[in-house]
C-alpha cells in the first residue's frame, strides 16, 4: 500500500495537513521525503514538520495561525492541546474574568 501523504500548503509552513487519518508510528510522505508520526492524526488535522519551540509562531498557508503553547516535536499532532490563537482573545484583556465569566 502506498504511504499516506501530508500536504504542505506553503513553503514557509511548519505544519502540514494529513490527507487521511494516520496512525502513531506510521510513516507519511511529505514534500519528496517521509516523516514518522509521533501521534495518531485524524484526516485534515495538522502535523509538525519540524520541532516547534513553545512560544514560536505556527504557520499554515504561509501565514500565522497562532503560537505553540508547549514544545512540539517533529511528527506530533498540532491542535488545541499545543497551539493557541492570538486573535479574539478576550480572556487576555486586562481584568478579563476569563472562561468562568
Amino acid at each position, binding site marked *: 500500500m502506498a504511504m499516506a501523504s501530508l500536504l504542505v500548503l506553503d513553503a514557509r509552513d511548519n505544519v502540514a*495537513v494529513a490527507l487521511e487519518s494516520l496512525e502513531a508510528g506510521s510513516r507519511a510522505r511529505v514534500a519528496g521525503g517521509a516523516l514518522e508520526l509521533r501521534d495518531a492524526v485524524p484526516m485534515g488535522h495538522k502535523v509538525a514538520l519540524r520541532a516547534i519551540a513553545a512560544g514560536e509562531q505556527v504557520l499554515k498557508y504561509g501565514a500565522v495561525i497562532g503560537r505553540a503553547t508547549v514544545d512540539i516535536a517533529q511528527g506530533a499532532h498540532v491542535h488545541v492541546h499545543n497551539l493557541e490563537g492570538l486573535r479574539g482573545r478576550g480572556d487576555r484583556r486586562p481584568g478579563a474574568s476569563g472562561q468562568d465569566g
Partner: protein
Amino acid sequence: MQPDHFLGYRRPAGDVGVRNHVLLLPTITCANQVAASAATLARGAVFVTHQHGCGQTGRDLEQTMRTFIGYGSNPNVYGVVVCGLGCEAASARIVAEGIARRGGKPVELVLIQESGGTLRAIEDAARAAAWMLQDASELVREQVPVSELVLGTECGGSDACSGISANPAVGSVADRLVDAGGTVLLAETTELIGAEHLLAERAARPEVAQRVYEVIERYEREILATGYDMRGGNPSPGNMAGGLTTIEEKSLGAAHKAGTRPLMDVIPYATRPKTRGLVWMDTPGHDIEQLTGMVAGGAQVVLFTTGRGTPTGCCIAPVLKIATNTATFERLRDNTDVDAGAIVAGTASVEEVGERLYGELVRTCSGRLTRAEVLGHQEFGLWRIGPTL
C-alpha cells in the same frame, strides 16, 4: 444557450431573478402565523418566520427594516405580501412602501389589527398572494448574461479541508464570474480575522483597504469586550473536531472563497453592492444571519461550502451546498449538491472542480432546484445589533 448565460426573469427595475417567488413577509413575530397559514392556502407562495421586529430602536431597527426591504426587493421575488400586526416598531407599511419604491414590483400590505383578527388577515394575505401567483405564472425565462448575477459565498461547518478543496473551488468560480462582469459577495467578517491583510493587499483603492481593517477591528474589539477567548464559539466544537485549531487558521481557509481578483468595496450588512466585481459584505459568521444579509443585498444565488455538512437553505434564493470531502458528501447526500473531495483525494484539480461547480451554478440559475429547495429549507435570521427593549 450562449456561454456565460443563463435563463432568468427580468424584473421591472431591470435586475434579473433566477427564481420567481411570491413572498409572504411578516415584519413582526406576531404576524408569523398569518404568513405561514396564508402560504398553505396560496399554494406556491413562500414565507419566512422570525422572532424580531418590535422593541427595537436606532441603528438596530434601521438594519432590521433595511433587511426586510432588501429581502422583498431581491430580484428572485415577483411580488410581496407584507404582513404586520399594526403597532410594531418595524412598520409593515414602511417596509411595503420601501419595496414598492425600489423595485416597481407588486406589493400588498395586510395588518392583523386592520383586517380584524387572525382569520381575516390570513384570508386577506392568502388572496393577495393568490392573485400574484397567477400573474407570476405567466412570466417566461429569457437568456441573460451571468454579469447580472450577484453570487453570495459562504462556508459553514468548516473543517480543515475547506481551505484546500471546496473554498478554492468556489474561489475559481468567483474569479470566472468577476471576469464575466458579475458580482461576488465575500462575507463572514468574524471568519476573516487573521486573513484581513491578504484582502487589504488586494483592495482596489486605499479607502477599501482601510475599511477592511476597520470592520475587522470593530468586530475583534466587540469580541475582546466579552472577556472570553472566542474559541469554542468560533472555531466551533465541530470546526475543531474537523481539525481547525484557531480563528486565524479558519479565516485563512475561508478567504479562499474570494478567489484572486481585486477587492472593489466593503459594504454594510443587507445593502446592495454599488460596484461589480468582488465585494465584502460586513456580516457575522453566523450562517443564517449572513445568508439573510447577502440575499437582502440582492444575491440571487449562494455557493455554500461545508466540511461537517449543513442543511441550510433560503426560501427565495437557491443555496448550492459543496462538501469539502467525499465522506461528508456521502453521509449528507440529502443536503449536499456538489462533492469537492476529489481535490483532497488528488483525483481532480481545483480548476476541474471549479469548472464543474460553475456549470452547476449556471444550471441552478436557469431553474434546476437545489437539494435545500427540494427539501423545503427556508432558514431566515436577522442580525441584531442592539438590545431588545
